[in-house]
């Protein structure tokens, strides 16, 4: 294998992993606050279609990204009002959000299928991008990829050293105790859910404006679900989300790599790799009960009502 091929694989790995990273970071924050939002796929698609249509009609990519984020946040607020405000079952609400988002995005995008736009171009940083192997991977990407690096660092710092991060963890572990000592449980959960929505919206915009600049129905192709699996795979640790996202990104381009090398393995078979890896990690994690219990946010998926 020559060095150019490896350089290109690494480059594609990061590009493919970026939407996963964005969605998973958002979902991680959301789950750390104790809210399980299975609506990622729906928010992703809404971000993609709204971002694409906005970019196409206005000609401004930045406006596209902005509206993609707003679409994601709006969707997450819908989830928030139902699951947090009305205390509905989070799993059911999340699934409904995905179905709703899939349908609504298809409806909105009907007239825009296959229309081309000039997508977001990579911006290679001088000198840095010439570093062998990793230069292209890290420094010849587009702005959203750079932004994803920054967001990763921000979330990492948020949970490691910031007080709001501590509050999110506390709310996700024991909302009743958090309420009793006066932490704003509902506000924290709403904000976490909205952050998740913003990240999913941005990831959707990235798909339809930068990654493959066009709109096709259901173009997220299960990335929302992979991101959900990724959070579990990463055992709710921020740094592992980054590694996992790139690893899953690599897994989803492996069939191209293998084709290039002359092997033929069914791409369907390779597509199960992320899920198989997640199951494997779950099995490994559950071997040690104490660790397993300490990793997942303890109140994940449980609704909370202040008066009870």
């Amino acid at each position, binding site marked *: 294998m020559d060095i150019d091929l490896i350089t290109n694989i690494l480059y594609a790995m990061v590009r493919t992993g970026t939407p996963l990273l964005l969605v998973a970071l958002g979902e991680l924050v959301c789950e750390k606050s104790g809210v399980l939002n299975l609506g990622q796929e729906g928010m992703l698609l809404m971000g993609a279609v709204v971002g694409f249509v906005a970019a196409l009609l206005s000609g401004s990519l930045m406006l596209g990204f902005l509206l993609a984020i707003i679409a994601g946040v709006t969707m997450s607020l819908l989830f928030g009002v139902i699951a947090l405000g009305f205390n509905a079952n989070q799993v059911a609400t999340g699934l409904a959000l995905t179905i709703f988002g899939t349908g609504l995005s298809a409806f909105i995008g009907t007239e825009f299928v296959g229309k081309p736009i000039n997508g977001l171009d990579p911006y290679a940083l001088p000198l840095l991008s010439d570093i062998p192997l990793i230069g292209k991977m890290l420094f010849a990407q587009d702005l959203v990829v750079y932004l994803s690096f920054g967001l990763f660092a921000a979330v990492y710092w948020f949970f490691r050293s910031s*007080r709001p991060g*501590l*509050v999110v*963890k*506390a709310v996700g*572990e*024991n909302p*009743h*105790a*958090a*309420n*009793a*000592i*006066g*932490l704003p449980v509902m506000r924290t959960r709403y904000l976490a859910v909205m952050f998740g929505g913003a990240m999913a919206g941005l990831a959707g915009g990235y798909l339809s404006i930068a990654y493959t600049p066009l709109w096709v129905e259901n173009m997220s192709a299960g990335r929302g679900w992979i991101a959900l699996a990724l959070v579990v795979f990463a055992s709710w640790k921020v740094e592992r989300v980054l590694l996992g996202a790139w690893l899953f990104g690599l897994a989803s381009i492996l069939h191209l790599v293998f084709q290039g090398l002359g092997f033929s393995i069914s791409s369907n078979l390779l597509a199960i790799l992320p899920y198989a890896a997640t199951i494997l990690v779950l099995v490994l994690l559950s071997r040690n*009960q*104490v660790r*397993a*219990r*300490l990793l997942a946010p*303890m109140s994940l998926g449980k609704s909370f009502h202040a008066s009870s």
Partner: protein
Amino acid sequence: MAEPHVTPPRLTLRGITKAYPGCLANDSIDLNIEPAEIHALLGENGAGKSTLMKVIYGLVKPDHGELLWDGLPIDIRDPAHARKLGIGMVFQHFSLFETLTVTENIALALGDDAGDLPTLAKRISEVSTRYGMALNPDREVHTLSVGERQRVEIVRCLVQPIKLLILDEPTSVLTPQEVETLFVTLRQLASEGCSILFISHKLHEVRALCHHATILRAGRVSGECTPQEESSESLARMMVGDDTPISTDYPKVLADEPFLQVRGLSRLSEDPFGVDLQSISFDVHTGEILGIAGVAGNGQEELLGALSGENEIDNHDAIHFPHGAVGQLSPRQRRAAGMAFVPEERLGRGAVPDMSLKDNALLTGFLTGLVKKGMISHRKTRTFAEQIIERYRVKTPGTETHAASLSGGNLQKFIIGREIMQQPKLLIAAHPTWGVDIGAATAIHKALIELRDKGAAILVVSEDIDELFQISDRIGALCHGRLSPIKPTPQTSINEVGRWMAGDFSETDVASSATVSA
């Protein structure tokens, strides 16, 4: 108290009223707490203590009435506001986060005043040393004992300026020795000018600690007094009213024919925060009550699960009934052999919340002729449920009422009645009067004594050491999955059992007591 105050009371409540649907939790309550005073708030479960303290801590808004803080009217918006005023609260069910460290837990409660964590950790060490509550700020809370967790809660209140400390049933999770230590800390705090509101239903503790007491009954103030000048009986009278019988002393018996024999019962817990049982041996004799004391989380659940048959054990010979080993038998087979079981959780394990009392009666009563050839006899089941309700004075509209709609005490009377009515040869009861009012507790105690006198072997596992001394004929304690020596109740003392609860016993003690009782 007749002379005018130079300084106003620290906290005054005037006419506090709070109604919940179907229940007047607080009815026009007045209360005065002076600076440096340890003030007891005494009352049974459901008397309105919790609601009142939530009002003071800003967790609940009263419907009527006003609060005066240092003489000035104030509206406490939320717990953060209460903390700013200098009100700290130690909760009964701790409000701690298990996966976070002591320092992080305290930082969360302090809000923006917490400062950076290393400085805070230093302050925590200082405060905990000063008040004699050793605490390592870097430990994660899930590694701490229950007593240590309570220290975290108290230290959390003390790292900021504090004027009023509220403690909700703080001694229910402590050994008698830990209670003494806590009282030393509280007296020191009060001597420094901090007011303390001590919520409890344990009369001797209130008499030992508090300067003044306000007694609540059914949401109203039913009395005020200086506890040292009252007897436990007169305090109890104020708590329960005139028409409820207050528990008495029961004659102790000594029996020597073992029904349940446990020998070398060991079991590794599969729960990450569970306790491993370590070679536990004891007998429960026909016609006696054996009490096992211990702070929750020292192996009680694991022991009860092994005895009831819910958890499998490796050594089937470890548990014997008179006719042989039962270690491999299912709960149902053990019931058929004469065992009855009252689990700790009433809803979900002792009874199915959404099922009627009649159906709940059937759940364990089905072995006593309520089911014939696979068909349920509804008439007999209803009669059975009616008998339980009548005999044990369960307050309910009827047998079709859902279990979940009964109060804790009533449901407990129903569950215990259901088991006793089946005339078991062995009754295993976990925390039989936990959260039950004095009247119902007395009824349950009488029922247990009556069953004992009919010749049943009874094992009672409880955190309430006073209760165990009242009803047990012999007594022992669990600590970290080890069982202490077992002694006839008249031959031991609360202090000794307290030391056992803290693990202060050796294997030779256990062995020698085993030979004495055998």
